[in-house]
């Protein structure tokens, strides 16, 4: 009992920075994981990754002018992300080019600008910080920011849920009954950017997309409906955060990668054991019914 307490509870009970890290990362999961589910279902999984890169020049600009301050870096990241999301989204909506190609073009340009800006002033240590974040150093400002982003995300999802599902399931139908198709697409891209920016202080630009996509990808193996998939993704996100933080505490590992790797373990377990995973499909379901 004592040992269990020491392993699982004490790190969070005894240290304020662990509590903040836990609180911040759980809030992040709450917003980012459902967004990840929709990214995956729209076959935009890699767009999340591209967006994470695209945020870099904005964050770097904030860093260039104000140093390691969360607010300027966040606002910069948000602006850069929105420009890239809107630009790539508009090119794919209004020209023949598909979103994957336009997104790749925009994020590569953006990333190059970002790396250039960081190298003008910063050392590689700073670059590492921007890229990989520090969940263990979340201050009040960062927590409030993440909280706000979660509220906006969940509220938008609740309001636009039906349109978002319709836009994924049958976009032509949505266009025939409503004008919401394009606005919903852009609102969704906005939410992606918002959640990536929220994550980058804690996990860095590269790993925040991991917390978005891995739980969603894992949840896909367990259910064939959207609503349970989102709930499950959030729960997997929660579990990964707790496990990752404990791992990083006990084994002195960097916290961001520990969280993402925990989600990775869940992902691999889901591939194998999920109700729609390999074992079920290949081994247990070798029998079939008569009709």
């Amino acid at each position, binding site marked *: 009992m004592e040992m269990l307490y020491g392993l699982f509870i004490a790190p969070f009970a005894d240290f304020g920075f662990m509590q903040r890290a836990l609180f911040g990362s759980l809030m992040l999961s709450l917003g980012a994981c459902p967004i990840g589910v929709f990214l995956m*279902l729209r076959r935009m999984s890699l767009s999340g990754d591209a967006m994470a890169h695209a945020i870099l020049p904005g964050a770097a600009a904030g860093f260039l002018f104000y140093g390691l301050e969360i607010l300027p870096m966040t606002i910069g990241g948000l602006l850069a992300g929105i420009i890239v999301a809107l630009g790539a989204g508009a090119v794919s909506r209004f020209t023949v080019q598909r979103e994957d190609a336009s997104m790749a073009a925009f994020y590569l340009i953006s990333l190059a600008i970002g790396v250039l800006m960081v190298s003008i002033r910063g050392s590689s240590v700073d670059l590492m910080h921007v890229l990989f974040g520090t969940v263990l150093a979340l201050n009040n400002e960062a927590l409030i920011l993440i909280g706000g982003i979660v509220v906006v995300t969940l509220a938008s999802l609740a*309001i*636009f849920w*039906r*349109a978002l*599902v*319709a836009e*994924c*399931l*049958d*976009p*032509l*139908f*949505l*266009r*025939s*009954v*409503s004008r*919401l198709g394009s606005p919903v697409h852009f609102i969704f891209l906005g939410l992606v950017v918002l959640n990536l920016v929220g994550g980058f202080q804690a996990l860095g630009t590269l790993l925040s997309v991991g917390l978005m996509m891995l739980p969603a990808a894992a949840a*896909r193996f367990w*259910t*064939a*409906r*959207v609503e349970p*998939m989102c709930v499950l993704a959030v729960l997997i996100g929660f579990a990964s955060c707790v496990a990752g933080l404990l791992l990083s505490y006990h084994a002195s590992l960097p916290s961001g990668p520990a969280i993402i790797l925990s989600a990775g373990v869940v992902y691999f377990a889901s591939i194998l054991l999920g109700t729609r995973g390999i074992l079920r499909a290949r081994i247990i379901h070798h029998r079939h019914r008569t009709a």
Partner: protein
Amino acid sequence: MTQTCLTFRDLTLGYNSHPAIHHLDGTIRKGSLTAVVGANGSGKSTLMKGIVGVLKPMAGEVVRAPGVRAAYLPQQSELDRSFPARVLDLVSLGLWPRRGLLGRHTKEDRESVSQALMAVGLGGFEKRPIDTLSGGQLQRTLFARVLLQDADLILLDEPFNAVDAKTVGDLIALIKRWHGEERTILVVVHDLELVRQNFPETLLLARQPVAWGETRETLKPENLLRARRFHEAWEENAPWCEPDGHAHGETHDHIHHDHPHGHDYDHHHGAGPRAA
């Protein structure tokens, strides 16, 4: 005078400045059941897209009578069949015109979804994932969604593709029921025998209307022959169609006639190219 549901005024629709529907004038009467026939590339689907509004006209306009709500079953649906949804979820999209973005789906709504599925012979399919449906079952599911939309104007683009004979019969019966309910219906069909048996009116298209009116008249051999001579391919350097090249007077007769039957478009358009 009978009420009109749709009015085409000098409507030109197309892609990359090449018209697929060229200077179409005329009206669709409220409560009419019209088959749209023509060769591949004669502009049938394009006309449907133009009416529903997903394709903007290059010139002219489509005017819907005020308050007319359209339901559209496209030929090539953009449906994502790998999306984790059940038949119930897909058909429930048809509640959009009634409930919109935020309106709650009530018990009666769910009831009407089940009834719509029953009407297309898919009772009890509510919980089936859509990726397990056959092509014909999916088509019937989409029919159920149209049914649920409860629209005044129903546009069906080749709804009988990949559908077995029995189901075609069921779907025709459904269309006739809609016709009896005074809804306006346009259906793109290829099977001329089906058209002769079930559709009172027909629009024969070959980029321009070859004939339009009562089915028996429209589908006369000489009209069909002219429709068949239609040249499908774009001509890359076809001359630009000048606004003055067609006089308004020669095409808008259709609007002024109170009775919709028996028009022959021979004297309007001729078979030759109109763009000069």
